């Protein structure tokens, strides 16, 4: 209905292949970016920024990572939490070993460690598919969790066993550590997430992204078209784990401030997976929708009792939100297995073909 595309035509392949070929979509994205970069820092409260926006962005990035693996390359993984952990611990080690290195460089470097570990645990994917593979990623999850506890070197033998984020500056501004303001941290994360999402979108629409989807949709055909499964699957693992690793580093350095192994446990793996499922497998926009949904819904649920001045324990609301999210996952799988992103796409398609029910 509001997508009136008549008169939008493409005179070059560049324009036709553009990420957002429809003018209305470009305007929409621009608006979202404006809100994210200008309106929120100017208007939102510290609580909103540090308890909602920052975690949302961190999880969205992790979901992008998992979605690359699960949604685009078709490889199930239950080890996301651990891969995030690898990124976080690597970032911590690098930051403490090389205190003078720019923290952003450290963050981006730490992703490579996660990518490396991802490739190692992705090796079985060459012989194993589907659920079997999912179980082997559990091995990664539990083995890495164990490492985070047992290898004291990883947390510099702290008594607490936790990693504490040191303060780091950028352009004379504290961007990590206790003195970094929420807005600074938010803007750093937002920029990183925006850039990395763009990069992911670029990769996904190019040769490499296509090779992942080929393997996902019909691996035999893909192989007969010259795709080498080894390279394709491992590159998906590497790429995905890189994103998860950076997300993990961001989580600790720009959100939590300190972290223990619990921040990277299997429940976080599941959390990210729910985001991907609810958001929509095979959709980058879905990662953001899923992350918003899964992260924000419980926050809202927790806020309900106080809003109505009901005397309900926080734990109780936690359980209720667990039930609701579980039920929603089932509901989504029944109604729209491809998640919010598909709902959005279907809705958009409806708007585009409005008043007709479908395109003719």
């Amino acid at each position: 209905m509001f997508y009136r595309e008549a008169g939008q035509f493409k005179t070059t392949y560049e324009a036709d292949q553009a990420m957002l070929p429809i003018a209305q979509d470009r305007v929409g994205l621009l608006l979202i970016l404006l809100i994210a970069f200008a309106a929120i820092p100017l208007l939102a409260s510290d609580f909103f920024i540090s308890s909602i926006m920052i975690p949302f962005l961190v999880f969205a990035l992790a979901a992008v990572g998992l979605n690359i693996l699960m949604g685009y390359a078709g490889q199930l993984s239950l080890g996301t939490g651990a891969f995030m952990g690898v990124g976080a611990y690597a970032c911590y080690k690098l930051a403490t070993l090389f205190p003078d290195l720019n923290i952003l460089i450290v963050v981006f470097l730490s992703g490579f460690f996660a990518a490396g570990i991802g490739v190692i645990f992705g090796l079985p994917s060459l012989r194993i598919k589907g659920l079997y593979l999912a179980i082997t990623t559990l091995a990664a999850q539990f083995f890495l969790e164990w490492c985070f506890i047992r290898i004291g070197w990883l947390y510099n033998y702290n008594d607490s066993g936790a990693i504490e984020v040191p303060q780091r500056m950028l352009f004379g501004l504290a961007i990590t550590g206790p003195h970094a303001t929420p807005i600074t941290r938010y803007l750093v994360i937002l920029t990183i997430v925006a850039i990395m999402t763009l990069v992911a979108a670029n990769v996904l629409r190019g040769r490499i992204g296509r090779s992942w989807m080929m393997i996902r949709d019909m691996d035999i055909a893909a192989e007969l078209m010259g795709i080498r499964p080894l390279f394709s699957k491992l590159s998906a693992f590497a790429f995905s784990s890189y994103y998860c690793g950076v997300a993990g580093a961001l989580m600790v350095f720009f959100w939590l401030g300190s972290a223990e192994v619990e921040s990277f446990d299997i429940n976080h793996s599941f959390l990210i997976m729910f985001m991907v499922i609810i958001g929509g497998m095979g959709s980058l926009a879905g990662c953001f929708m899923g992350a918003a949904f899964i992260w924000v819904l419980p926050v809202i649920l927790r806020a309900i009792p106080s809003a109505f001045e009901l005397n309900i324990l926080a734990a109780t609301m936690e359980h209720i939100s667990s039930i609701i999210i579980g039920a929603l996952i089932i509901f989504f799988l029944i109604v729209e297995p491809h998640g919010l992103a598909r709902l959005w796409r279907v809705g958009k398609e409806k708007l585009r073909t409005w008043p007709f029910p479908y395109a003719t």
Partner: protein
Amino acid sequence: MNKPVNEQLLEIGGQAQSLPSVPHYLLRNAERYRDKIAMRHKDLGIWREWTWADLLVEVRRFSLGLAQLGLQPGDKVAIIGNNRPRLYWTFAAVQAIGGVPVPVYADSVAEEMGYVLDHAGIRFAVCQDQEQVDKVLSLQDKLVGLEYLIYDEDRGLRAYDQNQVLAFDYVQTLGDQAVERDVGAVASWCDAIDNIKPDELCVMLYTSGTTGRPKGVMLSHRNLILTCLNANRFDSLSDREETIAYLPLAWVGDHVFSYGQSYTAGYCVCCPESPDTVTSDRREIAPSYFFAPPRVFENLLTSITVNMEDAGRVKRKMFDYFINVANKHGEKILNGERVSPIGSLMYGLGRIFVYGPLKNRLGMSKVRVAYTAGEAIGPDIFRFYRSLGINLKQLYGQTEASVYITAQPDGQIDADTVGTPSLDVEIQIADNGEVMYRSPGVFLGYYKNDEATQSTKTADGWVHTGDAGFIDDAGHLRIIDRSKDVGKLNDGGLFPPKYIENKLKFFSDIKEVVAFGDGRDYVSVFVNIDLTAVANWAERNNIVYGSYQELAAHPDVYEMVHAHVKKVNADLAAEPRVASAQIKRFLVLHKELDADDGELTRTLKVRRNFIVERYGELIDALYSDKTEQFVSTTVTFEDGRSGKIEATVQIQDVEGFNHHAVHSAAEVSA
């Protein structure tokens, strides 16, 4: 190449000034609209664009190449294919060296095409693809003058005889070589254009008359240019228009809309990717100037209806509601009349929820002027598009007139008229009711057919249209029928069968109508119901029936048809010249008229004489006072067997209106 155009002006009616030939306009546009887009073509997935400057280069290269191949002034060049830029360039390229382009219907079978190519005496044929090349080659024995075939798409053609079948590109490189050899070639090419005289033959368009062989209508540069300039002025068309070329090249309408008017106004013509993708290509381009024959609008409306049937209940309700709003107020708003505040509010909402999106889907969001012509358009269909806010208008034209005879000016729209005489066109109605016109667009004559020329065009330049019509009080022309088909009732009143039949056929329940009345006391009709539409209606109204025959004879169906006939009578009564042709008696035929039984032609037109013979007893009954008649008909079934259908067909009387009664009836129905 930048030789200034010789501003040799033509004076017509003391106001319009023009250049002497169409190629002159190409030169002018390449200067005046240098970097403006002249043409677009969706090819290999994207829209390729040519500015007027590009266009000049492409045309000149091809033109020089043709000259290299020996094309002489006066030579005829056939153009065969779909709407593709290179075929349009061929027009100008051929005209530039004084040749005559002859576009040919691409879908005509080899034999038909052979007649035209032979009759025109073509030397070159420019074909779209292998299919057309093969067709022409198969006729080669008969076409003595044919020298070269030039093709646009090279698929499958590489292995053909390179001495005779040439690629378009190749001919263009011949042109380039000519320039390389002689730098002056470009200048002399421009000089040659300057030598074209306005009254020289510009293009030859073959009309496929309903009877006999096609005739080659010769149009001069003056014909085309003045008509186009007038048309541009009439609708204030400028170089900002965009239009989509999708109708046959050989049809005068396309030649004028997509070539003549584009060159004279400097607007952009877009060629679709393939005939299959016209709808989506139109949506992408969103033309501002659009032409389509009624059948296109009919099909579009049908597809809208069909699509909406699949929509959810709420959406359908909303759609119907707003379409009703549009019906009530849309046309008034479009015509700039006053509407109640509630009405304009609802129409505004409708614009957001229905009309705008609908126009967007149809690719008509930006339409400023849309025309339909060729045959009568159903008034409901016509009003539907207008009520959405699309400035759809009717025009009346002919190949012999370079299209424009009359057109509806903005704001003076009536579904039943075809508008006022176009600029510089004079109209008179002959004693037998035939419409005649005289205009700068009047053709030179039929090629190699003086006899036909003389019988069509009078010595002082009036042309017989062959259509009967009259000019109403508002000065608008109304066409009622082919003049040779218009009969007389015994009381002397006109009997225009097509006019009556079409009025009834515009009801979706009615598929076919045969009207009788010539030499009789009153008009009566056979009605054929539309099975799909009526079955649908029957289902909704819980009417049970076992067969077509049973449904056709159902009292409720009769009642419905009766109401339709009555409405037509009211319409007829409103027009004094045809008021006496009101339908007095009708019957609903017990079987569908069928081409297999010889009742229709293969193109599904009624074979009147055959029907008169076959159903003589029914006709007799219509002109007696019987209320029913038994009839037995031999029919051919789908599997080829034949059998008999027997039925007793009811005949009903319908009340007529006098002129005064009509006005009150019209008010009631409004």
